[in-house]
Structures are given as structure tokens and as C-alpha cells.
């Protein structure tokens, strides 16, 4: 028993001596077994002497009647009484073997218990040893706040901004997840006085805890996401906590959607002068202010005036804001435009977030405005469809000839007549280019007759009439009707004026009023003459005879078009052609000297520190055990780059930064550190690096002499 106790003691001692528990447990088992057998060997004789057994029997069983020692005495030495007592004892059923205690049973039990304990320890240590790698593989996450030894309590109270109407939160989890502009108050309880304690934000912003007492508080307003850590300066040095994340939720500006009116709305002021504006405004917290902005645009052309109005909403129900505008009260007149926008501000502090909706345009139709007619100066461009072209006339003529059999003579004649009118209209149109616009009697047909034929059933004038008849108004300034009639009577007659025109210089003649050259005029005239003939035969109901003239007219017109297209007026100075090949490089260049420039371009790689740190990590992971000072320096520089990245994206990089710092701390203290830390660090560094751009390089092509001579004869054999 004593041996087992000693063994347990030994185990404890061995544990404190930092011997592996495994070995100690094995030793324990071995010593338990050995101890038991030693006990058995050495104590066997000492424990069970006959005297002691007799004494024990006397003590435990009353039926022995304190005379067990008699059995030990030799029979010769027994007195009579003793012999009698012995006989009595022998007559009784006595089970000495049941009463005899085996002193080794308890020792055996203890030994077995000891062995069981040892096996248990062994098993426990085995399990613990299995779990140790797990523990190192799982990185200490920053969610579980690992406190420094000098700190007994460290928690934070977050007061969200008043306008959010959220409750304050006190938490011991130091990863902050709150609203922008929250007030954070850290409470620090120390177990021993320290020199200074401070919080460092994003590696650049520091808040000091006041230097007195063991209970300290510091507070700040959080305006930037990122990370922070606690640094405590004690007599032994500086201790730093894990990194903690700060992620701030931004208060977004209100979102406005205009339900009514639609993007472009036209209102009839006479019917509805009231306009309802419905907007749905939503914000994270509350909408403090909302209004309708109306801009009234009045006037025409360059004379436009703008007026701006603001109206509050009439009533608000579940985020639906409604306002009814009286457009007449606004001063909206027909032809004016109104631009509507909804503006809103939320209750963010210190500055509210403003928001604007899209702009809606409200127009009113001005029915009083008269549509301006097209002027006579642009007849061709304005109404080209009313003409039949020469080609169309030809097609129609051919069609008429084809359908001749099916038509009644009257219908045939009517269509031929109509084609003649079309031909006339076309001729007049081309005649306008020659200044023949005042011709009113054509081919002997009275004007009224044509008008009648063209006049449709309804009252509106046929558009073609404009071209056939020149409608005079008061200030037209043209010839009087009488002189016109004289002209109409005999247009081809050689008058005295015509004879004289060869000798006098007349301005403002019809023919001279155009810009065309004589050649074009002559050709145009020839075309008109053909049209005349065509019209003549069409009106004589002989379309087959009119066809050659029509074709000729078309040919002339097309020629004319081609000619006018080719005609370009050349203006200005025409330089002689340059001869750079002859002239270039022929000057005197004695005094000009060649220039040579030499420079070495060194590109600055902004990721050089990251690259070096990554190379160090890859070396360490490939089996290099000791972390050299140089490697530490590179890793520290890489940590700086990682900290910058963690500032903007703490969720992605903070764990890696934490791991890197733990690795660096461990490496600085012990010269080596668990490589498990390096995996997230390597991943973070890798994702920091940009994708490299391709670079030119030389191919590796070891060519034997035979292949070399083959290549040299392969490519070019001349």
C-alpha cells in the first residue's frame, strides 16, 4: 500500500518535473506490479506466523474460545484440560480457512486499482496528445476575447447615435458591430497597476486610458471601420491583445420612389387643374423632412422664365406621402411645363442624408397655337409625295397600255387625261427651276377645268392646286391678271419684247433668276420640251405615242442629275505636289550631330514587401525550421502591408494579421513558431498580390549540333 502511495507521489513529482505523463504512467504500472510481488515475497513469512494466526482466530471467532494456540502445542505437552478443550474444539465444525484473512488481497486490490489508475492516466494523456494538434490547427479566432494576464475585465459599451433609437449594448465581445457614429466606451479592470494602457486603431490612431486606478475607462466615437487592439505597458514590457474588428453600418440616405404622376404627364388644364403627387419614401431609421419641389417653366424660345416652389406633403401614411397641387394656383398656363421632384432628408446626426427622386415632367397643351404652314420656298422638300416622278409617269403609262383592253374607252381616256395632268404638274415643277413659275395656262386647257378635275369631294383644296395655280394675295407684286391673260393667250408668240431682248440688257428675267449655268438650262429646257410633247399625246389619249417623249425626258433629267452631281466648284490656291522622297534628307547637316541617350529604368514594385514576406513564408513551410532575423524583418514589413489591407477589409484580412502577429511573437521569443499560423497568412498575402502581366522571355532550346546544321539548311536554301 505504501508502495502504491509512493508511486502516486512519484507520478505527481514526475508531472511537476515535466517528465512526459506517458512515461510516468508506464512507470507507475510497472512499479505497481513489481511492488506487489516484492511485498508478497518479503512479507509472506513475516505476516503469517502460526502464533499470529491463532491469535487472529481467537480474536475474530468466539467459537474458538480463546484456545486456538492449543493446536500449535505438541500433543505431549498438553495438560489434561488443554487436551479436553482441544477435543471439544475438534468436535465443533470450525472453518478456519474462511476466517483467515489473506493480507495480500487488499494489497492485490490496491495494486489493481493503481494499475487501473495508471491505465486511465495513459489513456487520458493519449487523448490529450491527440487533441493537442487539433488545438494548434484551429487558430485562435478573434471572436473569443483572449485577455492579457494583467487584465481581469475588459468590456465595451456601445451607445448608438440618439436618432437611431437603439439601446446601448454592453458586451464582453470586443468585435464591434454597430452603427456609424456610435459612442464606444471601453472599461478596463486591472489586477495590478500598469504604466499605461491604450487602444490602437488601424495601427495609427491611439486612445489612452487615464493613468490612475485599476479601473479605467476610455471612449471614442466610431467613424471608421477597421480594427483595433489593446496595448498595456507594464514593468515587464508591453503586452498586446488580439486584433478586434470594427464594422460600422452606414446610415443610408432615404430611398424615394414616385408612384404618381408618371414620368411624362400631359394635363388638360380645362378639365383637371388638380394634380396628385404620391411618393413612397423609406429610410433605415426615420424621414425627418420631405417636400415636393416644383419648377415652373414659362415662355417660348429664348424667353423662358423659371419659378421654383416648395410644398410640404399634405398627409403621410405608412411611408406613403401625398400632396395635391392646384396647377392653376401655381400659375400654369397652356404651353407651360412643370418639373416635379421629391426631396427628403433623414434624421441622421450630425448631418442628415439628403435624397432626391427622379424628375417628373408635367406639360400642358397649348391648343391656341396655329401650326405654321410650309412656305413656297421649300416645295420639293416639304411635300414630295404629291408629285409623280417622270419614271412613275412612264410606269403608269405602260400600265395603262397593258390594261387598255380591259378598260372602257371612257375610263382609258380619263386615265390618260389624268396622266397628262400629272405630266403637266411635273413639268411645272421643273419649270420652276427655269423661272417658269407664273405659267398658268398650260397646253390650252383652261385652269378652272384642271382645278375641277383635281378637286375632290370634300371642301379642302387639293394640295396639287398650289402648284398648278399661283394663288395671289394682295402684296404678291406680280403681274396683273390682264397681262397674265395676255401671256396665256399665246405663250409661244414672238412678241416685240422677245425680239428686243436680244439687244437690251434686262434684269430680273425669268430665266436669269436661277443660278444654273446655260448648259444646264438648255438641257432642262429640252427636257421640258419633251414633257410638253408627252403631255400633248397623253391628253390626246394616245399614251403609246407619248411614251417615247416620256422616256426621252427621263433620260435628259437623269443626265442632268448626274451632271449637277459631278459639278464641284474649285476655289482657292492649288499647291504644287510635295515630293518628300526626293527632297527629304538632302539639306546640309554638317553642324547637326547625332545624339545618344542612356538611362536605366528601375521600376518600383509596390508589392515588394509582400513578395518578400511570401517568399519567406514559402521557405518556412517547405521545412526551414528556425526563423532568422532577416525573415522576421521581412515578415514585419509584410505585416504592415497586411494591416493597411485589413483597414479597408477587416473581415478578409484581420484573421491573417492576427495569425501573423502571433507567429511573430512566438518566433521572437522562441526562435521558432508553429507553421499552422502560416496558412492563412500565405493566403492573405497571395490575394494581396496583383496578377502579373506577361513579359517577353527567351525560349529554352538546347539544340544538338546535328539539329543546328539541319535548321541552318532548313529555312532558307538559296
Amino acid at each position, binding site marked *: 500500500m505504501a508502495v502504491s502511495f509512493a508511486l502516486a507521489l512519484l507520478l505527481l513529482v514526475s508531472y511537476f518535473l515535466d517528465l512526459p505523463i506517458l512515461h510516468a504512467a508506464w512507470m507507475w504500472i510497472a512499479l505497481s506490479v513489481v511492488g506487489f510481488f516484492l511485498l508478497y515475497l518479503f512479507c509472506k513469512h513475516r505476516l503469517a506466523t502460526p502464533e499470529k494466526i491463532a491469535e487472529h482466530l481467537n480474536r475474530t471467532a468466539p467459537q474458538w474460545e480463546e484456545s486456538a494456540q492449543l493446536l500449535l502445542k505438541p500433543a505431549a505437552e498438553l495438560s489434561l484440560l488443554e487436551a479436553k478443550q482441544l477435543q471439544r474444539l475438534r468436535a465443533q465444525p470450525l472453518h478456519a480457512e474462511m476466517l483467515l484473512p489473506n493480507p495480500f488481497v487488499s494489497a492485490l486490490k490496491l495494486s489493481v486499482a493503481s494499475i487501473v489508475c495508471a491505465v486511465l492516466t495513459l489513456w487520458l494523456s493519449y487523448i490529450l496528445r491527440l487533441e493537442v494538434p487539433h488545438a494548434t490547427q484551429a487558430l485562435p479566432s478573434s471572436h473569443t476575447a483572449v485577455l492579457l494576464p494583467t487584465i481581469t475585465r475588459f468590456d465595451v459599451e456601445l451607445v448608438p447615435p440618439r436618432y437611431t433609437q437603439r439601446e446601448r449594448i454592453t458586451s464582453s465581445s470586443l468585435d464591434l458591430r454597430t452603427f456609424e457614429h456610435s459612442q464606444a466606451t471601453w472599461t478596463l479592470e486591472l489586477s495590478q497597476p500598469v504604466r499605461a494602457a491604450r487602444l490602437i486603431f488601424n495601427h495609427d490612431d491611439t486612445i489612452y486610458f487615464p493613468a490612475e486606478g485599476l479601473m479605467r475607462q476610455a471612449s471614442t466615437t466610431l467613424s471608421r471601420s477597421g480594427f483595433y487592439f489593446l496595448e498595456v505597458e507594464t514593468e515587464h514590457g508591453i503586452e498586446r491583445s488580439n486584433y478586434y474588428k470594427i464594422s460600422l453600418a452606414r446610415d443610408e440616405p432615404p430611398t424615394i420612389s414616385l408612384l404618381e404622376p408618371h414620368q411624362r404627364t400631359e394635363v388638360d388644364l380645362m378639365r383637371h387643374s388638380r394634380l396628385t403627387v404620391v411618393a413612397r419614401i423609406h429610410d433605415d431609421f426615420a424621414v425627418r423632412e420631405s417636400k415636393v419641389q416644383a419648377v415652373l417653366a414659362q415662355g417660348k424660345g429664348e424667353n423662358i422664365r423659371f419659378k421654383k416652389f416648395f410644398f410640404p406633403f399634405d398627409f403621410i401614411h405608412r411611408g406613403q406621402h401625398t400632396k395635391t397641387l392646384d396647377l392653376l394656383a401655381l400659375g400654369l398656363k397652356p404651353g407651360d411645363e412643370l418639373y416635379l421632384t421629391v426631396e427628403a432628408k433623414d434624421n441622421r446626426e450630425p448631418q442628415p442624408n439628403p435624397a432626391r427622386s427622379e424628375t417628373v415632367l408635367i406639360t400642358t397643351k397649348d391648343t391656341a397655337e396655329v401650326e405654321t404652314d410650309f412656305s413656297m420656298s421649300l416645295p420639293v422638300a416639304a411635300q414630295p409625295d404629291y408629285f409623280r416622278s417622270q419614271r412613275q409617269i412612264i410606269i403608269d403609262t405602260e400600265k395603262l397600255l397593258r390594261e387598255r383592253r380591259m378598260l372602257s374607252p371612257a375610263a382609258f381616256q380619263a386615265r390618260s387625261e389624268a396622266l397628262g395632268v400629272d405630266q403637266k404638274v411635273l413639268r411645272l415643277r421643273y419649270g420652276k427651276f427655269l423661272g417658269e413659275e407664273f405659267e398658268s395656262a398650260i397646253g390650252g386647257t383652261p385652269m378652272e377645268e384642271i382645278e375641277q378635275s383635281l378637286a375632290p369631294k370634300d371642301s379642302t383644296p387639293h394640295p396639287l392646286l398650289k402648284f398648278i395655280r399661283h394663288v395671289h394675295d394682295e402684296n404678291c407684286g406680280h403681274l396683273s391678271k390682264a397681262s397674265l391673260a395676255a401671256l396665256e393667250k399665246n405663250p409661244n408668240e414672238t412678241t416685240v419684247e422677245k425680239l428686243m431682248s436680244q439687244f437690251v440688257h434686262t434684269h430680273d428675267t425669268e430665266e436669269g433668276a436661277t443660278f444654273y449655268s446655260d448648259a444646264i438650262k438648255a438641257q432642262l429646257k429640252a427636257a421640258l420640251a419633251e414633257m410638253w410633247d408627252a403631255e400633248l399625246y397623253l391628253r390626246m389619249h394616245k399614251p403609246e405615242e407619248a411614251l417615247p417623249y416620256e422616256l426621252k425626258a427621263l433620260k435628259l433629267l437623269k443626265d442632268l442629275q448626274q451632271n449637277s452631281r459631278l459639278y464641284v466648284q474649285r476655289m482657292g490656291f492649288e499647291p504644287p505636289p510635295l515630293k518628300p522622297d526626293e527632297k527629304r*534628307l*538632302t*539639306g546640309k*547637316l554638317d553642324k*547637326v*550631330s*547625332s*545624339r*545618344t*541617350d*542612356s*538611362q*536605366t*529604368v528601375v*521600376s518600383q514594385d509596390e508589392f515588394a514587401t509582400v*513578395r518578400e514576406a*511570401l*517568399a519567406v513564408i*514559402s521557405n518556412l513551410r*517547405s*521545412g526551414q525550421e528556425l526563423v532568422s532575423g532577416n525573415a522576421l524583418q521581412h515578415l514585419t514589413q509584410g505585416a504592415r502591408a497586411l494591416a493597411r489591407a485589413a483597414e479597408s477589409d477587416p473581415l478578409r484580412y484581420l484573421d491573417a494579421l492576427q495569425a501573423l502577429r502571433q507567429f511573430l511573437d512566438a518566433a521572437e521569443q522562441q526562435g521558432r513558431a508553429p507553421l499552422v499560423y502560416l*496558412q492563412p497568412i*500565405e*493566403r492573405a498575402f*497571395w*490575394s494581396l*498580390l*496583383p*496578377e*502579373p*502581366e*506577361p*513579359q*517577353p*522571355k*527567351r*525560349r*529554352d*532550346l*538546347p*539544340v*544538338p*549540333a546535328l539539329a*543546328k546544321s539541319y*535548321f*541552318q539548311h*532548313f*529555312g*532558307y536554301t*538559296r
Partner: protein
Amino acid sequence: MEFALRGLWQWVLWLIAALILAYLVRLELRRPNRRQLALRLLASAVALLSLALLCLEPMYRQPVRVSDAFLLTSGSDAKQVQHAADSLHPACIFALPHAPLTDTLDNLERLPNVAMLLRRYPHVRRVHIFGDGLRPDELESLSHLQLVLHLAPLPDGPVAVSYPHRIALGEPLRVQGTWHASRRDSLWLYLDVNGEHCDSLSLVGESQLPFELNAVPRQPGKWLYTFCALRTARDTAFAGTIPIQVVPPQPIHVLILESAPNFETRTLKQWASITGNALVIRSMVSREKFFTEFLNTTPFALERLTPSILEKVDVVIIDLQTLVRLSASEQAALRQAVEAGLGLLIALPDAPAVRQLREHDFFLGFFTAVPESRQGRFVRPQGFSLRHSSSTALPIAPLRLRGNFGTEILMQDEAGQPLVLSSTRGLGKVAVSIVQETFRWALEGQRELYADYWSHALKCLARPNLDTDLWTHSLLPTVDLPCHFTLRTSPAMPIAVVELPSGVCDTLFFRQHPIEPTRWESTLWPREPGWHQVQRIGTADSTSVAFYVHSSQEEWSSLRRALMHQATQAFAHLHPHDSVHVSMVQTYEPISPWWFFVLFVMAAAYLWAERKF
């Protein structure tokens, strides 16, 4: 009768025995007592002979009937084997260690390796192979056997994969291969590094599905990419390691000769010099007046092109005008340099005249250029980049190029018309280009595209590295499997050192290829998994090549099985033994030495006893 001891030693032994016998015979003859002389002489001879035969280990010839054997390899189907055994009745069935256990076959015997089959069972002439087949190194030992294949169906997974082992920084790691799916399957393939997806691909279909994944490593070093396949049900169908060594690219030397300063050159200069390449630019400003610029290199005289100047550069970019204006000696120097490996890129502003084509046939004789009426054509060059960005169209010279026989198209437009054509001239290359104003890309901020274009063009043309060692090794080096190395190097008798991950070094000796004197081969049996470095003795450390040894044969198992299929089929195809019909073969069986020992003892005992009585 054959003897195990052969050659000279056999004769030496016979001689010694004869000398001893002669001595013993002489002793017997000179003995006065001539009783039983004949018997004594006989006993001496027998004793000596049996002693000699004990040393010589005689064997006797034994004819054996040829028989079939089954060889079960990994992936063999027990049912199929049983069926075949019922119909063919093989003499013996052997199973290799990786074969699945089959208890139903009665005469099954397990073999540690294939070589044991021949050593132990020489009468086997025809082997039926079941399962996935054998590795090439195992097949070599079966070269004089007739193989009958009963191969298992191809496994599901990647059955062919190719990827580079060593690339320069900026080059893509391109993993191409074939995925085999025995029934319709839908998978996502990923290429990961450090736990991040670099590229992904959705594979849907059955049987052979080709795939390609790309990634650009971001840092020089040795990296392990992971190729994995996920089923739609989120279970990993496959995961394999792809090792890659990324080396920093070696900068090149570019010489640009131009007839007038050019914005194109300016942009090229800015891009190429910032990445450390050496540039020399000579632009003519007037007659015989040049503006010469040296970037990242020491200045030298460049008024005239000489062979020594051209030796220093890897690529020359020149415009047609300058090329035509070069003197005869300069042209000869340029021609000589191109034949020795220099790359030459000629920018064509318009079609060269027929006279120029005739005179400068070496430089311009590999294409025809037809002038095109349409001026100012804009095209999008293609064939140089993996990026699918919408590139801006570039103007080209009003020409239509057509290459002669043997020309290579480096860039083409959308319609497949060549834009940059190159032709081999000796060890070097000559190329013509009609693309103008690539600087538009650089100015628009499409720097990657610009870099892709010029790095591709310069990479194709640059003078090849003729003196380097080129290492290749067999696919998937694995612990305890032979890995074959091929080294192309010019020095005679190369010796290489392999550095194991643990830091232990191993020497690699080479066997010269019988036909190619610069090709050397060797075999390594890797013992440790991880990155190994191999380097020829006498070269700089920077030339060492890394290769990765996979830890177990379970990795890439479907690929390994497919490779064994291929190797076995190819081997059976190359070694047809159908014409050999031998029913009996001769084998030699050793005679037990106990017989000779007993003879010796009897003879010696007689000689001893004869003296006593």
C-alpha cells in the same frame, strides 16, 4: 549439362582439379603397397570430381510444357476472372499486391512483383492480364511473353492531364486534360491555390470530356495548385495536386531601328524597359544623323550594324525603309545573325516593291503582300491572348498578307487573315507585321492586352537559349516508383545532384541516348515526398529545376490507371507474339549438391579405411 559457374573460372577450376588429380595419382602410384590400386585411383578421382562439382553447381536440362497464366492487377473484376478461368483453365493465377482479394479462385498465388513471375515460373509463355494493366517499368520484364489483355473499363475521373512543370512569371499555368465519365455526369472543375479558386469550369456529359483551366501564378516560387472536381451534390469527386515552379523571367535585349521617331516605339520602350528588358533604339532624325537611346544597357557605337552588336541582342525590330537602306555588309551581318538565332520583326507600311522583294529575298521572300484599295482598315488582332476582353480595333497597313509554304501566323484578324507572319531562317526567325498603332491599347488603359501582344510577339521571335539544360521527367513522380529523367545538355558525361526535401543529396548518373548524343537519361527512385531540386554539377544554382514527388499512388489514381491502360495496350501492340507457337521450352534445374557431397564422403571414407585395414 550446364554449370552455374561459367567462363574463365570454370576452366581455372578444371585446371586446378586436374593438377591435384595428377598429384594424387602420382602419390598412389609411388606407394610401395600396391593393394587395390585401381580402386584407390578411382576413389581419388571420384572424391576430387565431386569436390569440383560442388563448386561448379551443375544443372540438368528439363523440358517443360508451355502454359497460360492469369495475372490479376489492380482493378481486376473477380467475376470476369472466374469466367475466363472456367473457359481457359490456366495453369496458375497470380495476383499482384494491388489486386483486389478474390477467395473464389483456387489456384491463386500472390506475387510481390512482376519480375518474380518470370523468375519462379519460366514455363509461362502467355499471360492474360486482368485489371488496369502494368506500369511501363513492370512491362519491360515481360518483353518476351505473349500478352492477352482483359483490361478493366476506364475509371471515372481525369484520364489525361497535361500541365507545364516550370513556367516564367506572367505566363499562364494551363491545365488541359480529358475527364472520363462512364455515365452522364455534371461536375464543376476548379483550380485552386491557397484555398482560393483561380478558375472553374462546368462539365456536363458523358464519356471523354475535354477541359482546360488557366491560372496565372502571382509570385515566383514553388506552388501547389489543387485540381478538384465537385459534383452538383456538393461532394468532392476528385482532388489532385498540380505542382508548378515559377521562375522570374529573364529579360531580353531588343534593338529597334527606325527611319523616323515613332510613337509606337515610344510606348514599346516604356512598357519593355519598366520590366527590366534592355532596349537600344536608333531612330534616324536626318541623313546619317541618329538619335540613339540605350535603356538598361551600357551604350555602344551603333552607327553601323556589325556582327558584334547583333550578338548582343535577341530581337531586332526594323521598318522596311531602314531595312532596304542598310548597306550590303550590314545586311550580310544581319543575315548571319538571324541564321545564328536572332529574331527580326519587319514593320510593313505598304507593299514592298518587286525589286525589293527580289533583292532582299532572305528577309522578305516568305510572303506575298497584295495592296488593298481600302485605306485605313481597322482590325482586332487575335491569337495572342487568353483574355476575353473586347479589344479596340487597330489600324493596319493597306495590305493583304499571304504566307508561302512553311510560314507561321503569329497574329491574325477576326477573319483569319494573317497580320504577323513569321518564317524560320536558320536558327532564327524573320517576321513581318502590318499592325500599326498598338499604342492605342496602352493609351486606353488596356495594358494587359498590350503586354499580351508584345510579349507573345517577342517571345516567339527572341533568340532561343541554346546552352541551357532542358530537364524533363515522367508524369507524377511518386515515392517508391521509378521516375525517368531526360536531360538535354551539350557537355559530355553530365552528373546531376538531386536534393531531397530533407536536405539529403543524391547523385544522378546518366546513360547517353544511342542516337542523340546530347540527350541523357536516368532513373531515380524517390524516397521522400515533396519538392526536390535537381541540378547538373558545374552549373549555377539558378539553373536548378524543381520537381514534386507525390506521396502515394492513391493520388491521381484515375490518371495512373488510365496511363497503365495505355502503356499496357501500347506494349501489347508493340510485342505481338502471335507467330511464336512453342509447346515445349527447355529449362535448367540445378542438381542437388548433396549427391556430390555423399560421393565425396564415400570416396574419402574408402581411402581412409583402406589404410587402416
